[in-house]
């Protein structure tokens, strides 16, 4: 049975002569206005391969996906699918050739069942006028079996977790007879274990003969799963590399054209009394007995799986999820934080995980966004007149201070790249002069160059005696930026690693293991290996990005 299945699924991915499926882009060029998004791209996707497209935001990889999926028409060049050459595809042709794209927004139907979400596209493609619900279930079940996952077919989709939705989106693409599957940042919203499951599914799809192409900013995933990595920079292809030939450093060099690495943070502050102390904080069903203290100048890392209580605690500190019991002591005073405005008064700021919905007004200008948190201070006099000039000045100051790359402070926030959007959110909160800055996954979906700048910003803030709480799923991000790390599991802090432990070069793998196991481990870390310390520490940022204002025209 098993064997039959795999034959059945791999068969359509070969052409008539039995050669494996091939999608080829030949000399693709695409310009928007005067801007060249893609410049003479030649590329080949093969069945049975996982192909990663790497590149910073705006490097052209999404444009290429849109051309192959038929959403854009190329200016020059052609696409050859199994020997058939197209100078331009429309979405229907692209789908008929078995090309399916899963975008980041997934495009699923929240009020429909899992089964219907999977099967509807296929039935629609077959032009079925009537719905046979048994067939809907059969189609859905068949796809789920193909990827070896069990889901409740009857579940309404909005009740499902994001990882389930991701799997549903994959199944829907398979149901529509996908032979070439593009996935745009599929793992962004997933936790560690869910990522593992998704990568396994992708590996299975590869084995069954599909060409799987994924776009990801997470380099560890790229190395774990990709066979081939194609690097884009500024609309050009830098090259195709077998993933075995690459390491994180070389890949980021190819992507940015610069030698980028993350400086290890060293606490310099002399202040020893805590800014925030948390004693026995608890919230039913979320976290229990949390004890934590953060000093000025600390970058405290927080890591833990989904539901470990990490995010819940951070939201509590910002007044969004008031705790049931325990004390929060700020600057020596017991404080109750039951609303974000109380948190702001106490000197706490939160950089939310989802910047587009929780951090920004995408339809408003950079200036409006950057000053949104201090709008009170921009109003003067009896009638609270709004000072537009000061708004502009503040925004310009921010643009220079943290190097937001924008042509003008009047540009809409939604038009900036992910990294620059994040910087605007940073600027907004920095304007409130916070003393504790909670950053919830600040570099999700952000390219490497901007990542380094955000790290640099966080570190320079901490050097100026700000306390930072850095929530992240990336161990490397934490080990590079934090001087202390708290590991969460099942609503408790199971271990806090101090500077001494973090100096251990193997601490990264130790953290990964503790997070996965959900309990303290004793034997993994070898305390020796002082010599290797340098490996983590030998890192230099090029160009001190905070002072590099050449690229932002406003500052001149």
């Amino acid at each position, binding site marked *: 049975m098993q064997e039959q299945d795999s034959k059945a699924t791999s068969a359509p991915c070969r052409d008539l002569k039995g050669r494996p499926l091939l999608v080829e882009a030949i000399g693709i060029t695409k310009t928007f206005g005067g801007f060249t998004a893609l410049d003479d791209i030649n590329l080949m996707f093969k069945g049975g391969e996982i192909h990663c497209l790497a590149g910073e935001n705006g490097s052209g990889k999404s444009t290429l996906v849109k051309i192959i999926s038929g959403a854009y028409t190329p200016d020059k060049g052609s696409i050859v699918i199994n020997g058939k050459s197209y100078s331009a595809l429309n979405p229907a042709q692209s789908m008929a050739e078995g090309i399916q794209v899963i975008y980041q927004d997934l495009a699923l139907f929240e009020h429909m069942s899992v089964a219907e979400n999977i099967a*509807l596209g296929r039935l629609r493609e077959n032009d079925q006028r009537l719905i046979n619900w048994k067939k809907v279930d059969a189609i859905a079940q068949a796809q789920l079996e193909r990827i070896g996952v069990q889901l409740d077919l009857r579940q309404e989709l909005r009740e499902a977790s994001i990882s389930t939705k991701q799997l549903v989106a994959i199944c829907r693409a398979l149901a529509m007879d996908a032979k070439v599957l593009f996935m745009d940042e599929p793992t962004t919203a997933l936790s560690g274990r869910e990522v593992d499951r998704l990568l396994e599914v992708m590996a299975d799809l590869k084995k069954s003969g599909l060409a799987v192409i994924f776009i990801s900013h997470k380099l560890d995933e790229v190395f774990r799963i990709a066979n081939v990595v194609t690097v884009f920079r500024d609309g050009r292809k830098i090259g195709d590399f077998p993933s075995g030939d690459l390491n994180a450093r070389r890949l980021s060099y190819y992507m940015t054209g610069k030698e980028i690495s993350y400086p290890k943070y060293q606490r310099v502050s002399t202040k020893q009394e805590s800014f925030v102390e948390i004693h026995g904080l608890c919230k039913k069903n979320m976290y229990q007995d949390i004890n934590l203290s953060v000093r000025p100048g600390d970058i405290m890392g927080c890591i833990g799986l989904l539901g470990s209580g990490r995010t819940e605690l951070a*939201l509590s500190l910002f007044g969004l999820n008031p705790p049931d019991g325990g004390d929060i002591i700020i600057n020596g005073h017991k404080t109750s934080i039951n609303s974000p405005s109380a948190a702001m008064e106490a000197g706490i700021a939160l950089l939310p995980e989802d910047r587009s919905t929780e951090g920004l007004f995408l339809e408003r200008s950079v200036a409006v966004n950057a000053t949104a948190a201090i709008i009170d201070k921009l109003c003067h006099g009896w009638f609270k007149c709004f000072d537009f000039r000061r708004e502009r000045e503040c925004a310009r100051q921010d643009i220079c201070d943290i190097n937001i790359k924008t042509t003008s402070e009047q540009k809409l926030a939604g038009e900036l790249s992910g990294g620059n959007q994040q910087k605007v959110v940073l600027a907004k909160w920095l304007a409130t002069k916070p003393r504790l800055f909670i950053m919830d996954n600040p570099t999700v979906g952000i390219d490497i160059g901007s990542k380094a700048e955000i790290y640099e910003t966080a570190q320079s803030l901490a050097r100026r005696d700000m306390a930072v709480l850095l929530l992240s799923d990336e161990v490397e991000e934490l080990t590079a930026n934090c001087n202390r790390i708290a590991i969460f599991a099942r609503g408790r802090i199971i271990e806090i690693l101090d500077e001494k432990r973090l100096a251990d070069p193997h601490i990264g793998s130790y953290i990964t293991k503790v997070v996965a196991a959900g309990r303290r481990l004793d034997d993994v870390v070898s305390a020796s290996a002082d010599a290797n310390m340098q490996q983590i520490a030998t890192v230099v940022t090029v160009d001190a990005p905070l002072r590099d204002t050449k690229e932002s025209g406003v500052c001149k």
Partner: protein
Amino acid sequence: MQIERSEVILLIIIALYALGVAVVNPAFLSIETVFDLVRTSSRDIILVMGLLLIMLSGGIDISFMSMALVGSYCATVIMMRYEFSSVAVLITLACCFGLIMGLFNALLVSWLKLPPFIITLGTMNLFHGLMATLAGTRTYGAGILPPSFNEFGSGYLLEIEGEYGVIGLSVSIIPVALVIVLTWFIIYKTMLGRGIVAIGNSEEAALRLGFRPLWLRLFAYGYIGVLAGLAGSLYICQVNAVYPDKMIGEELMVVAGAVIGGTSISGGKGKIFGAILGIVIIYLLKSTLIFLGLSASWNNLFVGIILVLSLSFTAYQEKMRNQRHLLFKVESR
């Protein structure tokens, strides 16, 4: 088909309320009450089926009462002029007028891309105004209308010997039942219906699967137009008179019924059974005022309370779900 929790709660509310009324006035618990409810609520149950389909598509239509009035009024005027007398002609003409008006709504909604509430608020007045200027504002009373209207409107499907004479189950249950079955079939058994639900969930996602929103909207808005014609015809037969200004102003009660029944205002979600229960509860409240010895103004109070309660329940469920997924809204204070 599973029954939603909100539907169970509505059933319980209806049962408790009926019990309460029966305690005050035992005469309430009789088959007559049920038959009466079927007859009076028939128009709005037909309308709410059309409204359900519209709301599933992510839109809303508040011009349906206007379409019901305009369709049936114009049909009557034509029938009087050309001396037709069959109810079938009345219904056919009214449905055709309704269809035209519904398609007009659909085109405006698709082209202007404005909120359908505003568009149909406009067309509601437009249709009524056109009718008043072109077809007149005469009232047609019982003496003038063809007798077939009354025969159909007060015909009985089956008769029972009651305490106070003959009581019967109105013939209007037949079109109501047909419309319910047809709507169920469209929503659950056709690709058309699933497409309408799909655009109500996410138009972008539906487009990517190859659905064509324009056609789906034309169908949904056309469907409520046809149903409005039918409901209007039924209504004038039941009251055996045609007024140029009745029905308009009652549309929001039907919208309230749909919402009480769990239909989502933001689209993509709604159940036939729930929508029917929503209308039933409104008519139950209306008809029991007499049994309780209360004036008509209490009706609004009751409907208001039920509407606010059901919305609170939905909002509470949403909040609980968001908390599970760690989404917190800033509480304004």
